[in-house]
């Protein structure tokens, strides 16, 4: 933590002109004058960084943010009973589940379906903006944030499964039947798009500005 000692200069594979294969881990050197090449072991198409990572991640992220609005405003479930038809959004589902005994599950749905997707979108936007601005601060925290988003993202799918199996089971016409409603498609789209965004982001971009600085100071 002390800033008096000069930071050790770590060479990155890119600084050494080497490709670390993302598929098989083999380290190889592209042909002289080339930036790209193929991995001699696994045949992966290699580049120093994922191609157009920032642009692709933004594209997925903006699409996810757009789908997030109908996902929360449109109903995800339609309940038909003898007395009429009810539509529930995700938030109404959380409220319905809230009871003296059911509140922990209600909390899981609230966190997984509402808080995680929005936190994911914000976190990825933060990572993209800081990477684009060449930030050298909080690198460890930023890569940890990336890993958290990567690890936690799949759990947002939980609401899709809740609605799927509620609808599959409650088919007791004319007494009561439950069917999925249009919001579910948008909600599933948010989860898939944010997962694709995480996959297209290259965490090495977080470190590139710092590596560049160290070289300049050396």
């Amino acid at each position, binding site marked *: 933590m002390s800033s008096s000692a000069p930071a050790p200069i*770590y*060479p*990155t*594979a*890119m600084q050494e002109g*080497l*490709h*670390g294969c*993302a598929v*098989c*881990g083999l*380290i*190889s*050197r592209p*042909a002289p004058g*080339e930036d790209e*090449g*193929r*991995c*001699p*072991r*696994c*045949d992966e*198409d290699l580049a120093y960084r994922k191609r157009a990572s920032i642009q692709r991640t933004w594209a997925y992220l903006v699409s996810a943010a757009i789908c997030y609005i109908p996902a929360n405003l449109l109903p995800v479930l339609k309940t038909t009973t003898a007395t009429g038809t009810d539509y529930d959004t995700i938030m109404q589902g959380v409220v*319905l*589940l809230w009871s003296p005994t*059911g509140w922990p*599950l209600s909390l*899981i749905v609230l966190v997984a379906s509402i808080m995680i997707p929005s936190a994911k979108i914000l976190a990825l936007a933060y990572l993209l903006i800081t990477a684009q601005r060449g930030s050298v601060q909080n*690198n*460890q925290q930023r*890569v*940890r944030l*990336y890993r958290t988003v990567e690890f936690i993202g*799949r*759990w947002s*799918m*939980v*609401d*899709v*499964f*809740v609605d*799927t*199996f*509620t*609808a*599959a*089971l409650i088919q*007791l016409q004319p*007494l*009561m039947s439950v*069917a999925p409603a249009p919001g*579910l498609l948008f909600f*599933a789209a948010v989860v*898939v798009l944010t997962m694709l965004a995480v*996959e297209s982001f290259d*965490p*090495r971009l977080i*470190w*590139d500005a710092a590596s560049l600085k160290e070289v300049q100071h050396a």
Partner: protein
Amino acid sequence: MSSQSYNEPVGDASLIVCQHCDLLQRLPELAPGASARCPRCDKELWRRREDSMNRTLALALAAAALYVIANSVPMLGLTIVGREASTTVLGGVETLWQDGQEIVAGLVFFTVILAPALQIGLMLAIVLGAIRAPAPRWVATLLRHHPTTGTWSMIEVMMLGVLIALVKIADYATVIPGVALFVLGALVFVLAAMQSSFDPCEVWEKIEWADEEARHNVSDGQMPSRT
């Protein structure tokens, strides 16, 4: 893109590049079960696993058996005023499809039926195909796509969703947890164990290279094994 030439491999097999920060470093000698972490970003670089291939094979076989059972018996049932209903995993997908949610039905099918099947099936093929060295090229093709199947295989998430659905339905009807529910619960742990016992590096070291000439150049300057 295919016109690109092959890179020249770096002979020193103890070097490793961190996938999360691109740091080039030398892998230390590791005791069994120990792992090396990147000093800069704390990413786990490699874990030395004991008897990885045999354990992975055993767990993949167990997972395959559990998977078949889980998908052939009912997962959930309910009774309400004398009427009964039950559903399998696939039944949930069918209902979504019939209700006009074809895309979501496809996604659910992919994440809880197709992706787990591929995750287990590819793993079996990879481990069996890599028994003898050099392993044929098709093992490389499967191994390269195997991580994707793991990303999209969401049985553990589905389990949580099913449990929440159970609690929701319990308000209106008597729910009967089916055999598949317990089998799926076991499968979640077997799959996790299978993934963590598998060491892709060990298989990659056995695989026939895309550019066989390069491999011979490397092995001339001896290729120290990591194990």
